[in-house]
C-alpha cells in the first residue's frame, strides 16, 4: 500500500497511451528553433500547439530586454512581492498593464494560474457567491475551492441559463461574481459577452473575464474579447496571462475597483510565492508594447487561423463553431485521437492531444493553436498532412483534389 495507490485508476489509461507511441504528457523538445519550429526526438516538427499567438518568444527586442535585465538585476528576486520581491520592473509592468486596459489598478502574479487563484479568492470568500461557466479552466475551479465561496455553474456560453440560475438565487444574485473566459482554451469558442453583460447588469452582479487566450488576439488594440465586444465599461475585472501572446510567464489582474490595494495583503497566491524574475518582467514589458502597437501581428494571426480552420472544415473534419487561433479537431474516440496524434508527430506536426476529463463533453480532441509567425506554407503543409492521414485512417472520405 502506497500513498499513490488511490491514483491507480489512471495507470491503465496512461500505459495504454504510452504503448501507442510517444507520451503526450511528457513530450520533450531537444531544441526550439523558432516560434514555429522545434526538434522532437531528433526530428524537426512544425509547432502547432504552443499558444504562442503573436510569435514573440524569439522577438529580438524582447530577448535583448530580457538579457539586459538579467545582467543588471540578476537571475531571480528570491522573494515574494509582499516581502523583498518587488523591483521597479514589477511596478513599471503594473502601470503599463493598467494603462493598456485603461484601468486604475493592476497587479502582477507569478503565473496565470495564480492570477486566477489569487484574484478570485481575493474577491470572493465564505458567504459570497461565485458563478462559473461549466467549462471553466482548472485554475478557475481551483480558485473557487480556495475562496470557499458558494459556487454555482451555468451551461457553457449560455446567457439564458446564466440568467435562470441567477434568478433562482433570489436576493443573493446581487453582488455575486460571474467568471467567464474570452476564448475557451480547448475548442476556441468565444463567450457571448454582450448578452452576458446584459444579464449581469440586470441582476446587479460583478463580471470577471479571463482573457488568457484572447489578449493580443481579439480587439483592435489586442485587449481581448471585452474590447472586441465593445463592453469594457461593463467588465469589472480582467485576468490574463503573460504565457501566451506575450511569450513569457506570469499573470495579472486589472480593475477600477476601490480598495484594490488591499488585495496585496489578503491574496495568498500573491503573497506567499516568489515574484517573477526581472528578465521575465523585462521581456513582458516589451511584448506588451508590441502587442498594442503591432496591429499587423493580429491581422496575420487572424489570416492564419482562417486558413487552418477553413482548410480542416472543408476537408470534412469536425471543428469548433467558428475560426479562432485555437482549432480543435474532434476525433471519433480516444484511441483514434492517440493514433492521429502520433501519426501527425511522425509526419512533422506537433499539436496537443486533449482527452477527458480535461475536455468539454468528454470529447477527444486534437487541439491546435496557430501563431502570427506561421507562414501560409507551413499551414499548407499541416493541412496536407491532415488530409493524408485522414484518408489513411478513414476519417475523410475523399481528397480535396477529387472533390474539386
Amino acid at each position, binding site marked *: 500500500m502506497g500513498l499513490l495507490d488511490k491514483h491507480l485508476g489512471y495507470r491503465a489509461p496512461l500505459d495504454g497511451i504510452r504503448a501507442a507511441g510517444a507520451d503526450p504528457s511528457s513530450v520533450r523538445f531537444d531544441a526550439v528553433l523558432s516560434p514555429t519550429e522545434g526538434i522532437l526526438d531528433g526530428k524537426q516538427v512544425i509547432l502547432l500547439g504552443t499558444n504562442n499567438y503573436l510569435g514573440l518568444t524569439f522577438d529580438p527586442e524582447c530577448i535583448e530586454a530580457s538579457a539586459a535585465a538579467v545582467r543588471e538585476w540578476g537571475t531571480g528576486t528570491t522573494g515574494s512581492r509582499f516581502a523583498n520581491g518587488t523591483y521597479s520592473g514589477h511596478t513599471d509592468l503594473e502601470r503599463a498593464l493598467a494603462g493598456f486596459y485603461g484601468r486604475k489598478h493592476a497587479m502582477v502574479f507569478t503565473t496565470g494560474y495564480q492570477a486566477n487563484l489569487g484574484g478570485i479568492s481575493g474577491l470572493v470568500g465564505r458567504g459570497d457567491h461565485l458563478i462559473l461557466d461549466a467549462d471553466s479552466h482548472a485554475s478557475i475551479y481551483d480558485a*473557487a475551492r480556495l475562496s470557499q465561496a458558494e459556487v*454555482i455553474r451555468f*451551461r457553457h456560453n449560455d446567457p439564458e441559463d446564466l440568467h435562470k*440560475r441567477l434568478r*433562482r438565487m433570489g436576493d443573493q444574485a446581487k453582488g455575486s461574481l460571474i467568471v467567464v473566459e474570452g476564448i475557451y482554451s480547448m475548442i476556441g469558442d468565444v463567450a457571448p459577452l454582450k448578452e452576458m453583460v446584459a444579464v449581469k447588469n440586470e441582476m446587479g452582479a460583478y463580471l470577471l473575464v479571463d482573457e488568457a487566450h484572447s489578449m493580443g488576439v481579439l480587439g483592435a488594440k489586442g485587449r481581448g474579447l471585452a474590447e472586441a465586444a465593445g463592453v469594457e465599461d461593463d467588465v469589472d475585472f480582467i485576468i490574463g496571462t503573460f504565457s501566451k501572446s506575450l511569450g513569457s510567464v506570469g499573470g495579472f489582474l486589472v480593475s477600477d475597483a476601490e480598495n484594490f490595494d488591499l488585495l496585496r495583503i489578503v491574496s495568498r497566491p500573491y503573497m506567499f510565492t516568489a515574484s517573477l524574475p526581472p528578465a521575465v518582467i523585462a521581456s513582458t514589458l516589451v511584448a506588451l508594447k508590441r502587442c498594442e502597437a503591432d496591429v499587423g501581428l493580429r491581422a496575420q494571426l487572424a489570416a492564419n487561423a482562417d486558413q487552418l480552420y477553413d482548410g480542416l472544415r472543408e476537408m470534412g473534419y469536425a471543428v469548433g463553431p467558428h475560426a479562432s487561433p485555437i482549432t480543435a479537431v474532434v476525433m471519433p474516440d480516444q484511441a483514434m485521437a492517440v493514433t492521429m496524434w502520433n501519426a501527425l508527430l511522425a509526419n512533422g506536426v506537433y499539436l496537443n492531444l486533449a482527452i477527458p476529463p480535461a475536455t468539454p463533453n468528454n470529447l477527444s480532441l486534437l487541439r491546435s493553436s496557430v501563431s502570427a509567425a506561421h507562414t501560409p506554407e507551413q499551414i499548407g503543409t499541416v493541412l496536407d498532412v491532415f488530409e493524408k492521414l485522414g484518408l489513411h485512417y478513414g476519417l475523410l472520405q475523399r481528397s480535396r483534389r477529387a472533390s474539386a
Partner: protein
Amino acid sequence: MGGSRMVELATDLTVREVARAAETVLGRSVQVTPETDIARDLAVDSLALMNIVMELEDRFDLSIPLDRLATVQTVGDLSELINKLRVKA
C-alpha cells in the same frame, strides 16, 4: 408516524430523480439505492457529478452550491442535501 412516512417517500422520489439525472448525464441506465456510492459504484468523476448536480438544480428549480458536495458520497447523501435545500428554499 405519518410524518416520517412522508419524509421517506420524499427521499424515495429524490433518489429516483438523482438516478434520472445521472442517466441523462452519463447516457446509460443506472440502478441506485440510497447506499450507492456515487464515485465507486457509478464510476462518476468530479466533472460528471457537477453535471448531475446541474441537472438536479433544473429538476428541482433549486441552487445547489458546489461546496456542499464535499460531504456527499452516496446517492442518499445527495438526496438528503437536496431535501434540506428544498425546505430552506
